[in-house]
């Protein structure tokens, strides 16, 4: 089997960097700074014609002045100098590159000609490259980040391949807030050489990556894409947003078949064949990928809901029903078991609504365990996370021995949450939560860090649960 060029591009032992300087006036410098400060352990060789050092690293006057070839060249220099540099890389024995610089195929015919020139040089020197017009890569376990966005992101199990650089850079802070951990992210740019199919095959094999999120504007090799995706989605979930645009226009249709073949109908069929879940928007793309990367798949579509408030529980149930899940009435026996442990104001139907109280043992331990142990319940949606942060002002206001109460509450909550985050693995069923508070709430932090996604609204949790079920069906699909 031929080696995927991304194996080296994503895991280089050394990097030669073209386009960084000691001045922040160029974007290359900003990118070099994230590269240096991200925790990457390999060697970095900045190239600079005049400076002896760049950002504290020894600088080299040219690629050919390196003692031995680097694994990867990152190129952020003006376009007209790139052909020469690429040849120099080839002659120096560097066979992998990321071309960040823009101004190629995306700008029109002249740019397309320049892009073709790059490709021809690369082919002549056996160089495989990402880009041009991309923002680069992130490999979280290696601390390798070639983008210009900060290094404050979480390592995890979602892999991203994007035709927009923004979705692997500007989203990093969004992921942090959502509790989404990244394995590897690739901005593919114009896909002059390495394209989305190569990336898909690479992340399909990557063990850190448990779910793949795609942002697609156009598919270069549809047949190869379909073949690669089918193979991957049989064991690893892939979610995509496809902004294909509508090519409506005046297509003369001689047949009824053609008159009904709108772009959307064809895309729907294509993604179905590929086994890829199609998200309507960016929020869904990352919500679903997060759940798929971190939670076990449900065996069926019957979901229990636990809530400590009527509204959010109803919202979850409503959205679950819209998206093909079922929120079944619990059996009389189970209802009796619930009634025995809940306050008299609670509802034991489904949603199970314990109404506002702070019995953490009930909501985090007894109820999830009781419900998920039922053979006819396949997963749990959960609303009712309240960290002690919501009480500390009140307790401080009262003063006195109340501070001991806070310490006790914290301790009890931590213990309960610790146990809560283990249910999915122990009982092999998914739990997804919603909470209007984010990571400013200590309970949200503990549950997210423990591996259970917490979404900002009830509907988003229910939507992600539906995505788990949709993928479970894809994974199990076979001929009758």
């Amino acid at each position, binding site marked *: 089997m031929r080696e995927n060029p991304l194996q080296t591009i994503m895991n280089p032992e050394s990097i030669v960097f073209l386009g960084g300087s000691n001045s922040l006036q160029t974007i290359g410098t900003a990118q070099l700074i994230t590269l240096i400060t991200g925790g990457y352990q390999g060697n970095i060789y900045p190239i600079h014609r005049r400076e002896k050092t760049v950002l504290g690293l020894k600088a080299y006057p040219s690629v050919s002045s390196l003692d031995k070839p680097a694994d990867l060249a990152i190129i952020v220099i003006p376009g007209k100098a790139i052909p020469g540099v690429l040849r120099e890389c080839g002659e120096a024995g560097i066979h992998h590159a990321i071309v960040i610089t823009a101004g190629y195929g995306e700008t029109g015919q002249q740019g397309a000609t320049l892009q073709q020139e790059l490709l021809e040089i690369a082919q002549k020197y056996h160089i495989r490259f990402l880009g041009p017009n991309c923002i680069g890569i992130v490999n979280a376990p290696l601390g390798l980040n070639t983008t210009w966005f900060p290094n404050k992101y979480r390592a995890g199990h979602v892999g991203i391949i994007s035709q927009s650089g923004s979705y692997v850079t500007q989203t990093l802070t969004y992921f942090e807030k959502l509790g989404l951990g990244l394995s590897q992210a690739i901005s593919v740019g114009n896909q002059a050489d390495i394209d989305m199919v190569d990336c898909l095959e690479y992340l399909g094999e990557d063990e850190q990556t448990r779910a793949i999120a795609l942002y697609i504007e*156009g*598919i270069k090799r*549809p*047949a190869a894409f*379909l073949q690669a995706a089918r193979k991957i989605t049989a064991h690893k979930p892939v979610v995509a947003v496809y902004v*294909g645009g509508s*090519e409506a226009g005046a297509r003369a*249709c*001689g*047949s*009824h*078949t*053609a*008159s*009904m*073949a709108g*772009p959307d*109908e*064809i895309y*729907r*069929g*294509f993604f*179905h*064949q590929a086994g890829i879940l199609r998200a309507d928007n960016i929020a869904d793309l990352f919500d679903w990928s997060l759940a798929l990367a971190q939670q076990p798949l449900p065996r069926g579509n019957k979901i229990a809901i636990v809530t400590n408030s009527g509204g959010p529980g109803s919202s979850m149930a409503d959205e679950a029903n819209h998206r093909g899940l079922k929120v079944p009435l619990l059996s009389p026996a189970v209802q009796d078991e619930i009634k025995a442990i809940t306050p008299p104001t609670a509802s034991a139907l489904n949603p199970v609504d314990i109404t506002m109280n702070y019995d953490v043992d009930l909501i985090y331990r007894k109820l999830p365990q009781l419900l998920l142990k039922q053979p006819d319940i396949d997963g749990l949606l959960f609303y009712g996370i309240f960290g002690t942060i919501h009480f500390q002002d009140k307790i401080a206001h009262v003063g006195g021995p109340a501070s001991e109460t806070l310490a006790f509450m914290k301790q009890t909550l931590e213990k309960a949450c610790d146990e809560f985050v283990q249910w999915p693995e122990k009982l092999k069923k998914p739990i997804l939560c919603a909470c209007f508070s984010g990571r400013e709430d200590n309970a949200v932090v503990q549950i997210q860090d423990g591996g259970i996604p917490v979404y900002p609204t009830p509907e988003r949790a229910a939507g992600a649960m539906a995505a788990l079920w949709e993928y479970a069906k894809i994974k199990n*699909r*076979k*001929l*009758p």
Partner: protein
Amino acid sequence: MDIIDEAIKKGRSSLSEFEAKQLLAAYRIPATREILVESEKNLLAAAAAIGYPLVLKGCSADIAHKTEKNLVRIDIRNDQEAVAAFRDISAGMEQDQMPVLVQEMIQGQRELAAGLVRDARFGACVMFGLGGIFTEVLEDVSFRVAPLERLDALEMMREIKGHKILTAVRGMEAVDINALADILVNIGRVGLDHRQIKEIDINPIIISGSRPIVVDALVLLDNSEE
């Protein structure tokens, strides 16, 4: 395939129904038994060979939508009706000597449709949906990109809203979905094998008992290239 090459050589932009079904038959897609009759003197022999009840259709590559041009007569029960229908259709056709298709009449309450289209991005795509007038009225269709695997064919059948029509409804037999899957997979192969084919409409596919049978087909050709 000769039928396609010859049609393109003659500058035609479609196959006749008779030719279209020969093409489909080469891919083991089951279609109506039928005989092309050039003149009235061959009519009754053809009718006897196929057997009543019959359907007669004006058959030319230039006539895409025959029903709209009133060139179809159905449920013909005997020789007398056959001759009357033949003369009627001949009179309605603009060119002289246009052949008439003598076709077995397939009985069945359920009509489905299938087809092929070439998408600018994804290439040959296969369509499946409800047939007859419902194809256009409800637009309840699904698409898959060729080549189709058997699983794709089965899934695209389930994807339409009206998929329950395939089951044993109202005392009718369940549709032989394996035979239907074969049809869809093979339409994809037709599209991949013959790049000169631009679009295909197969409508209706009538369900006779449990068996799907192609009753009408239209194949549009791309004769813009050499």
